[in-house]
């Protein structure tokens, strides 16, 4: 009988691991620990369509309850691990139980980073991570409040787009000199920023907030380091995430910007894997250890781990890709592009549909597309095939990513 598998965390990575194991005919016991008391669900819509009331809770669910039963995946709701006992190969649960494992998969994800000053506890200061957060924000947005969004990353911009669409007044405060600086190249940051400004979203760049001023448990304004104040009725804090690696660290596993794993996604313990937002892995694609926060990474790492539990020795090497919906901007990124030193625009930004091809040290590292999924798919094919396209290739008159992918 194959060993029992315990998966800590029922986000995209954890759920995918369980179902991929069954798809690969793994016959051992599978237990999935879900910290929430709701069937595992998709998070990407929470900062997008869900806020507009256009998505029901049930349509966020990955898999029906019956499917967990028929696939014999035991899902433990509202329970999670509090300790990993590597000597006895078991995990201690919040419920007091002790669950033995043969193989353990840590898919604990991440939590929102909090501000380095007080204010997070105020009644009109929100975060956006889980369904409950999104539900509360959805209600608040109906009041069309004056909103301050702290952090101009994907989540902040997605939320701001919807809030503006719903009639709120929105100001984004970003510490860096451009929006989405961690994820995309300056060309794309500038374009997206202009679109948001044109829609009436205010964006303050290179602005540091030093305090949230309040009155009777409600934030009233943000205090800037230059002495100015930004009045607000609702604050969204979206300043990035922190990997949930404490369980692993307490168990003596190597942790450095997340739980360190090798190319086959094993932690420093051969019976324990870590995947998804919480895992830091050697990326062949970027040539260094990285941690990715994306659906693609969670899903593809889950599949690799399932294969390795089934007895292969598969190295993880998928091409990273991710997306963001901001009003009518569909932003798609293939590869890792934020550190590009050379960019070439393909198509005409004036049409609202174009791509930015990115190079680092003359190496093709990825493509950022605006409203151009065909370019995005072509870029993924080029990257997956290891095609070494050059600045000259894409600059050639008439050249498109699609034509290059076909040649």
């Amino acid at each position, binding site marked *: 009988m194959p060993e029992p598998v315990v998966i800590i965390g029922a986000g995209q990575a954890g759920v995918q691991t369980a179902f991929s194991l069954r798809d690969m005919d793994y016959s051992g016991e599978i237990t999935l620990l879900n910290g929430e008391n709701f069937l595992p669900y998709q998070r990407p*819509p929470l900062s997008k369509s869900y806020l507009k009331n256009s998505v029901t809770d049930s349509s966020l669910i990955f*898999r*029906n309850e019956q499917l967990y039963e028929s*696939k014999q995946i035991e899902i433990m709701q509202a329970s999670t691990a509090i300790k990993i006992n590597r000597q006895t190969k078991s995990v201690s649960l919040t419920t007091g139980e002790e669950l033995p494992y043969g193989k353990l998969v840590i898919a604990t994800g991440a939590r929102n980073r909090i501000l380095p000053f007080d204010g997070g506890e105020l009644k009109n200061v929100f975060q956006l991570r889980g369904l409950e957060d999104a539900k509360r924000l959805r209600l608040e947005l109906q009041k069309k409040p004056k909103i301050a969004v702290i952090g101009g990353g994907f989540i902040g911009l997605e939320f701001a787009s919807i809030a503006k669409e719903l009639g709120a007044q929105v100001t984004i405060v970003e510490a860096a000199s451009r929006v989405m600086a961690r994820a995309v190249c300056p060309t794309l940051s500038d374009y997206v920023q202009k679109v948001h400004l044109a829609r009436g979203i205010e964006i303050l760049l290179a602005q540091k907030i030093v305090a949230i001023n309040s009155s009777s448990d409600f934030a009233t304004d943000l205090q800037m380091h230059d002495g100015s104040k930004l009045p607000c009725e609702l604050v969204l804090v979206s300043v990035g995430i922190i990997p949930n690696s404490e369980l692993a660290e307490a168990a003596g596993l190597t942790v450095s910007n997340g739980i360190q794993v090798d190319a086959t996604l094993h932690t420093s313990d051969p019976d324990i894997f870590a995947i998804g937002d919480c895992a830091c892995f050697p990326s062949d694609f970027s040539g260094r250890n990285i941690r990715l926060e994306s*659906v693609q990474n969670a899903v593809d790492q889950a599949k690799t781990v399932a294969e390795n539990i089934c007895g292969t020795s598969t190295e993880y090497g998928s091409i990273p890709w991710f*997306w963001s919906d901001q009003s009518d901007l*569909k932003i798609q990124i293939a590869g890792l592009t934020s550190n590009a030193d050379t960019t070439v625009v393909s198509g005409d930004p004036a049409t609202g549909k174009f791509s930015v091809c990115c190079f680092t040290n003359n190496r093709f590292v990825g493509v950022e597309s605006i409203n151009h999924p*065909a370019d995005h798919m072509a870029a993924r094919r080029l990257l997956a095939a290891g095609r070494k396209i050059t600045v000259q290739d894409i600059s050639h008159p008439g050249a498109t990513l699609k034509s290059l992918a076909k040649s």
Partner: protein
Amino acid sequence: MVKVTYISTDGTETDMDVAEGTSLMQAAVSSGLDGVIGECGGSAMCATCHVYVDASFLEKLPAIDDMEEEMLECTSSDRRPTSRLSCQIESNSDIDGIRVTFPETQV
């Protein structure tokens, strides 16, 4: 509830009652039907929920928008005149009895 019939490449038919407002992709994936993946969760971003729609229902569906049009050019199996992304087809009474066929491959 709206009746939807999913047909796999080997001809196996699965009838399902789908709640109004749920996409045909979501209904298939959450019930564990092999045939669509829907990796992006329904944002028309990944082209892994491609289906062939029974021709008699084509006109009852919302028109293909620019994004879906581009993604349909990127499907793993051949695009046909009846091709749609199932994440863009919402269940409603107009399409009661719709039949969709899964393509050979999604990736």
